[in-house]
């Protein structure tokens, strides 16, 4: 009983003190608290700078969506009315916010930064149908709503470990000596006469393989091998993932057939230029096949020039132990330029 009264007195003192404090309530409809920097709520589809739709209908967002709220009708490849290049389109794009969990994965996988989230805070609607974002609504949101912090380029960029400052531009000899901590995973690679095969083999299962590979005589292949796997989390999912390892193992023939999105991307200038990161990685993911297969596979399709580009750059590239989206994109651009 005694301890009860002590506690009771303390409780009374606390509440009494509260009366003289400022209420913590924020009166919502009239006062809106500032949203966090990365607040996100709704979605928008974007256009390229030249006015073309950024979405290429690759269905990756539809595939990755955990609650399966995205349904896309891919329109197949056709000539862009603006850039006059052949590229994919989405004929219809519906995102049902009723079941959306706002995980932002669709934004992260988008190879062209076509889908982004918006900051518009209020989502309430009078009916469920109002929460179904049709293609028209999504494109309208591009203009009417403020964009959220992240798009695919930015979000994937965050997943890259920070670059060590040294040795980025070193010649071919140095990378073998100064790879980052990841070098341990493939110590044998640099000396090998045919590193391409070795690194190609390690690729599918080792998360950060063969940083030292470039020292080998066929740098093109090596760089091709390192790239797709090392920007690991983003690129692996962003690229036509499952197909990338396959050509590496299989050799020449799979390359052109298995990577249509990649070739599409590298084929049309616009998306690549606008969205350096993922597009670049996608392009580079096409290269390993050509690299592994040697020059012979390079012939038929666009991956070839990309591979060629890679062969030109590797001396500088491989030194960066974790070729990021940025590194990948530079390769992609070079390939573009070479073609």
């Amino acid at each position, binding site marked *: 009983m005694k301890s009860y009264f002590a506690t*009771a007195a303390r409780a009374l003192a606390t509440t*009494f003190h*509260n009366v003289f404090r*400022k*209420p913590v*309530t924020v*009166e919502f409809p009239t006062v809106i608290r500032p949203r966090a920097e990365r607040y996100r709520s709704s979605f928008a589809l974007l256009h390229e700078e030249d006015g073309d739709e950024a979405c290429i209908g690759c269905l990756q967002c539809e595939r990755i969506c955990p609650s399966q709220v995205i349904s896309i009708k891919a329109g197949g490849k056709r000539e862009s009315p603006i850039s006059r290049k052949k590229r994919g389109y989405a004929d219809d794009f519906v995102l049902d916010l009723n079941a959306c969990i706002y995980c932002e994965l669709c934004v992260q996988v988008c190879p062209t930064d076509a889908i982004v989230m918006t900051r518009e805070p209020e989502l309430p609607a009078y009916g469920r149908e109002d929460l179904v974002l049709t293609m028209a609504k999504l494109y309208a949101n591009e203009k009417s709503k403020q964009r959220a912090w992240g798009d695919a380029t930015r979000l994937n960029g965050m997943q890259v470990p920070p670059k060590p400052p040294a040795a980025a531009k070193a010649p071919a000899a140095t990378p073998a000596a100064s790879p980052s901590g990841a070098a341990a995973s493939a110590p044998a690679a640099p000396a090998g006469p045919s590193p391409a095969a070795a690194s190609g083999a390690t690729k599918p299962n080792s998360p950060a393989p063969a940083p030292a590979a470039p020292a080998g005589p066929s740098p093109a292949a090596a760089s091709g091998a390192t790239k797709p796997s090392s920007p690991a989390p983003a690129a692996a999912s962003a690229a036509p993932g499952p197909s990338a390892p396959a050509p590496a193992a299989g050799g020449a023939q799979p390359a052109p057939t298995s990577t249509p999105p990649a070739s599409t991307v590298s084929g049309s200038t616009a998306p690549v230029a606008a969205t350096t990161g993922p597009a670049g990685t996608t392009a580079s993911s096409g290269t390993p096949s050509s690299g592994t297969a040697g020059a012979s596979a390079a012939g038929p399709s666009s991956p070839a020039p990309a591979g060629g580009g890679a062969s030109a750059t590797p001396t500088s590239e491989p030194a960066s132990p974790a070729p990021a989206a940025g590194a990948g994109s530079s390769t992609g651009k070079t390939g573009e330029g070479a073609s």
Partner: protein
Amino acid sequence: MSDELVRGAFYSVLIVTVVLTATAMALWFERKFAARLQTRLGPTMVGPSGLLQPVADLLKLLQKEDIVPERADRKIFNLVPLLAALAALGAAAVVPFSPSVVASDLDVGVLYVLAVGAVTVIPVFGAGWASNNKLALLGGMRAVAQSISYEVPLLLSAMVPVILSGSLRLGTIVQTQADHHWFIVWPFFIGVPAFGIFLLAMLAEANRIPFDIPEAESELVAGVTTEYTGMKFAIFLMAEYIHTIVASAVGAALFLGGWDGPFRPGLHWMVLKTFLLFASVYWIRWSLLRFRADQLMRLCWRYLVPAGVILVAAAAVWVVLP
């Protein structure tokens, strides 16, 4: 004779009106005050500072379906809310708001207040019984046990001012304090503990936290009011508020000197003191946790009743001493 009748009727109507208005204000005040105790804002949307919230609440309750359980005792079920409100309101008749503003300053005012206050037990138990609901019945039985138990310390503590002033008339009790000292000031060693016991017993009588065992939400849903909806529930709620207001007024008259105070008319002081007591009831309500039933009984019979007896004896000795 007829003059007195007219006067009584006039003040009755006046006091009923005032008390009912005060009840509506109390609803608003409790919500606002409880919010501030928890650093919230409380109602803000209905009228300025949410002042019209009681009206909105009432309108809401009026719209609700009036349900009587199928196997309930309809007559009693429908009657008891009114009885509860009447019993609570009846006690207000003898409260002296000022030397002149009192409906009926009975010779046995203190006795009357306690008796009418105790009558509330009957409608409460009736509600529990008539609802034909185990939770309501349990609540009703708890209410009876609690109210009857706390009747004793309440009576004992109320006896202290009666002995000190030598009268059962509330007007005389207040006048004695106005002539000498408030009983809480002198003799404070009797007045303060007696006031404390009165406050605790009053809380228990009004079924207020920390003594709201009869309607313990977490155990009994809503106790005796479980089956009540709409307007009948509102009347029960109102009865509880009236009970608290009247008990605060009686407490102010018995211990805090009633209408006595400097500078302002007596009515102002009485209202202020009643309000402060009322506010402290809600302060306690929103700060403390509920007692267990056995703790409640132990507090009553092992601490409050012996202390009350000692205080009554002490008051008697104090009066006899020169």
